[in-house]
């Protein structure tokens, strides 16, 4: 009976998640390109060989990872600060909490278009301020470092509220008498943060970390609209590379291989994260 109740949902889940992976596994062994008239031709491991020697795949992998680590790190720091601020009781807190959640609710492509204008050189507001201060304008989307920074900024802006909210939920689960006891023993508030809050918040930090890292490693919407991967492919992520291979270069076999390669890297980093987490636990019992 209970299997019957679960069957429709599980079938759809298998169709949406498992079927694509099997499809890619098959497709990655085929040459299905514009040169084969878009028909699959078995080529063995040729796509995989190409992947291993493809400097662009590895550069994109490094860029994606760097983007994910830096932006998630920033989001955790900022999110923690915001959560601590919202955890105190003061007037208007509810309103501020709702307003600060707004960036998270907007569709990524909507604000990506907005950022293109805000960061415009020379007519955007940021460069307007720079010029009025007599400073040279910043070519945000025309320089590799600045474009990367722009993507990190836009992502941090959008997803920090989500992290803050998770951490706030965690803060609210910490019993207040712990702090009272700590204060009675003569502890200072800042020490309380380090000795009570952070350790007890750890599971929430971990959830936010895993959730956000997985999403950030798959970032696509933002770069597709904000930078298109440029300049010099410095903001190209693995997901965008896989998309370009399929939709622009019409090389489906290789696109599938890139996605499987990305999946393997994801699994590897998840494993690393689990190991690191166990180390962390082991070091500080």
């Amino acid at each position: 009976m209970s299997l019957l109740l679960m069957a429709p949902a599980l079938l759809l889940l298998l169709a949406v998640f498992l079927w694509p992976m099997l499809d890619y596994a098959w497709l990655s062994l085929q040459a299905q390109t514009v040169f084969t008239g878009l028909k699959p031709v078995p080529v063995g491991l040729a796509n995989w060989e190409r992947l291993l020697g493809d400097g662009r795949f590895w550069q994109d992998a490094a860029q994606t990872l760097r983007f994910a680590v830096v932006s998630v790190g920033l989001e955790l720091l900022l999110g923690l600060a915001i959560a601590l601020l919202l955890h105190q009781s003061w007037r208007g807190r509810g309103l501020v909490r709702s307003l600060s959640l707004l960036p998270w609710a907007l569709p990524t492509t909507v604000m990506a278009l907005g950022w293109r204008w805000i960061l415009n050189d020379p007519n955007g507001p940021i460069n307007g301020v720079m010029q009025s201060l007599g400073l040279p304008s910043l070519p945000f989307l025309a320089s590799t470092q600045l474009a990367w920074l722009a993507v990190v900024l836009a992502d941090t802006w959008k997803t920090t509220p989500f992290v803050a909210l998770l951490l706030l939920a965690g803060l609210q689960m910490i019993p207040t008498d712990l702090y009272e006891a700590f204060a009675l023993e003569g502890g200072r508030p800042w020490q309380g943060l380090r000795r009570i809050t952070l350790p007890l918040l750890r599971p929430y930090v971990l959830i936010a970390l895993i959730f956000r890292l997985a999403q950030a490693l798959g970032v696509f919407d933002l770069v597709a609209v904000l930078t298109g991967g440029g300049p010099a492919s410095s903001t190209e992520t693995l997901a965008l590379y896989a998309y370009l291979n399929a939709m622009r270069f019409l090389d489906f076999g290789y696109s599938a291989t890139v996605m499987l390669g990305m999946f393997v890297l994801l699994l590897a980093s998840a494993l690393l994260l689990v190991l690191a987490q166990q180390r962390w636990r082991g070091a500080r019992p």
Partner: protein
Amino acid sequence: MSSSPLRQRPALLRISMVALLMLWSLAPMLWQLYTSLRTPESLLAGLAGLGGGWTLANYSAVLQADPPFGVYLLNSTVVGALSTLLTLALAIPCAYALSRRSDLLKLVIGGGLLAAAVFPYVLLFLALLQVARQLGLANNLLALCLPYAGLSLPLAVLLLQAAFADLPVELEENALLEGFSLGQRLRWILLPLIGPAVVSTGLLVFLFSWNEFPIALTWLSRSELLTLAPAMARIAGSSVFTVPHGAFAAATVLGGVPLLALLLIFQRQIVAGLTQGAIKG
């Protein structure tokens, strides 16, 4: 003296922190709103053009484009609403059944759901594109709900299962003794009790479907069927002569306002849904 510096400083610090937070969160959106109301000339004049040059022309340009902007909003609403209904219809029985089991299967399914919930789904687009082609599901807003429901299911089932698990077993046992069937128990006893969880799950699914980009980008090619996210991307590449920053900004405002309204109205439920996920997960 009540206004001793010791008491004032934290308050001052807090006020400045809150002000900073609001500036950070709202300024980019307010700038878009401002841009959307300006004439092209005043925008290109930099800070010197802060004075005159207000207009609604950007909005009428966007609303009277071909297809008009309202079509995208309508499409997104239809897809969002139907995907939410479909997801809930599939997730509620599944979550119920899952919450009543305590065996290895539950562990396996639960683990699988958790993995699927954090999976970066953009990886799936190429295979889903092939599915759309082979089954003739392309350019069909109803069909688009299928992958959306599939992608939303992991989180939805996990959230609802946690809600079901919180209900005391005695409740259902009593109903069983009184001869209620499974359907009746769900409809009259269990669902009303997990109502809040259903609402917040539904809202999260709606937000996801409204905002989704890669699948919509590859499943829809007809402009009159586009949902908001791919429409914005297409607008970004559609300027003919000079870049219409004002019209772009009007599009971002129009595309953002419905969601902002939704968030402000249902913020309690959405926050509850998000934090439930964290606490139970």
